[in-house]
């Protein structure tokens, strides 16, 4: 899932400014299950903004609404009237949700309420860890299902660096060394021979280095009106 955390209230208030009507838009998918931007968090943020304005002697009309997914046009269309009535829209979806709202409603002023942080999972209740860097060319098949791109601080492809110590990373002593995990996993599976294969330099054009990425599936597209 996409994992995010809420910005400080002060930062959100500064970006909202002293406008009259504010709409907080939550998202019912990834940021709901990481407790950053779901319906509950939208309600709490709306309450917080209203009260903070009143504490300072002003008033702000802050409402909240949550859509099932901010990253799909169909769900955004359902809140057209709410968006139109607001001076500022605070999206507490991920960065995709913020941009989708801003793109679907070109006249709306949309500001983010979250910092979108990483692609990860809850390893236990209340603890999330990064697992995928969306690099565009997955190598998990040769690394025992442990990603050296997302989980090695240096994104190494052919074993650990000299900073791996007692299974921990020199960049972050609390983080396990991804290559130690990979070695232990493949050893347990009696597949250490996989590590004898030298991984060539990675083609980073599939990742961010190739610019914004796009996938087109002609078999799934609609409206092929120009097709002869």
């Amino acid at each position: 899932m996409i994992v995010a955390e809420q910005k400080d209230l002060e930062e959100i208030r500064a970006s909202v400014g002293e406008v009259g009507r504010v709409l907080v838009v939550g998202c019912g998918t990834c940021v709901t299950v990481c407790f950053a931007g779901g319906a509950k968090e939208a309600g709490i943020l709306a309450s917080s903004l209203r009260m903070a304005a009143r504490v300072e002697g002003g008033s702000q009309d802050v409402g909240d609404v949550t859509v099932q997914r901010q990253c799909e046009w169909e769900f955004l269309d359902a809140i057209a009237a709410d968006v139109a009535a607001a001076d500022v829209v605070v999206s507490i979806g991920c960065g995709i949700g913020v941009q989708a709202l801003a793109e679907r409603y070109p006249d709306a002023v949309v500001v983010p309420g979250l910092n979108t942080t990483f692609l990860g999972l809850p390893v236990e209740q209340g603890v999330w860890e990064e697992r995928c860097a969306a690099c565009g060319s997955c190598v998990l098949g040769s690394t025992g299902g442990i990603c050296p791109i997302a989980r090695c601080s240096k994104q190494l492809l052919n074993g650990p660096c000299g900073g791996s110590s007692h299974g921990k990373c020199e960049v972050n002593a609390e983080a396990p060394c991804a290559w130690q995990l990979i070695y232990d996993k493949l050893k347990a599976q009696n597949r250490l021979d996989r590590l004898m294969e030298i991984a060539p330099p990675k083609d980073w054009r599939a990742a961010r280095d190739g610019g914004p990425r796009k996938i087109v599936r002609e078999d799934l597209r609609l409206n092929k009106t120009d097709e002869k």
Partner: protein
Amino acid sequence: MTSAEVRAAAAPVGDGDAINIVAFCCHYCAYAAADLAGSLRIQYPPSVKVIKLPCTGKLDVQHVLDAFEHGADGVMVAGCMEGDCHFQQGNINAKRRVAYTGNLLRRIGIEPERLKMFNMSSAMARRWADAVTEMDTTVRRLGPSRLRPRSAGPEGRTP
């Protein structure tokens, strides 16, 4: 319990000048302790309004904010003694949630001392009365919440 119930409990009474404290009480301990305090004729400030929870583990951040937004000057959460929760650790979860909410209140601009958690058993009627008295004293020292206009001075009505 609903937000509407919380708002009703938080709404100022009478001339609106009285100190108003909302207490979220666990069914198994503080609610019974308050009942026992009444049976024993133990006096405590009338500024408190009790909302019964099945367990303080049910406490919701939104409900605490609702109370403050709709007129409460203080909110107390009263659960079982640590280690004695009927649902294993509902009161421990509530303790963490109260700490989180206190930090949120500070960011909003409300004194975090207006929110406090207490622990007691159902037999501790005196503890209940002392907790309400402590909360009432704290809120009177802080004065009425800046979230509601008052016509009287910061001391409010004498209980």
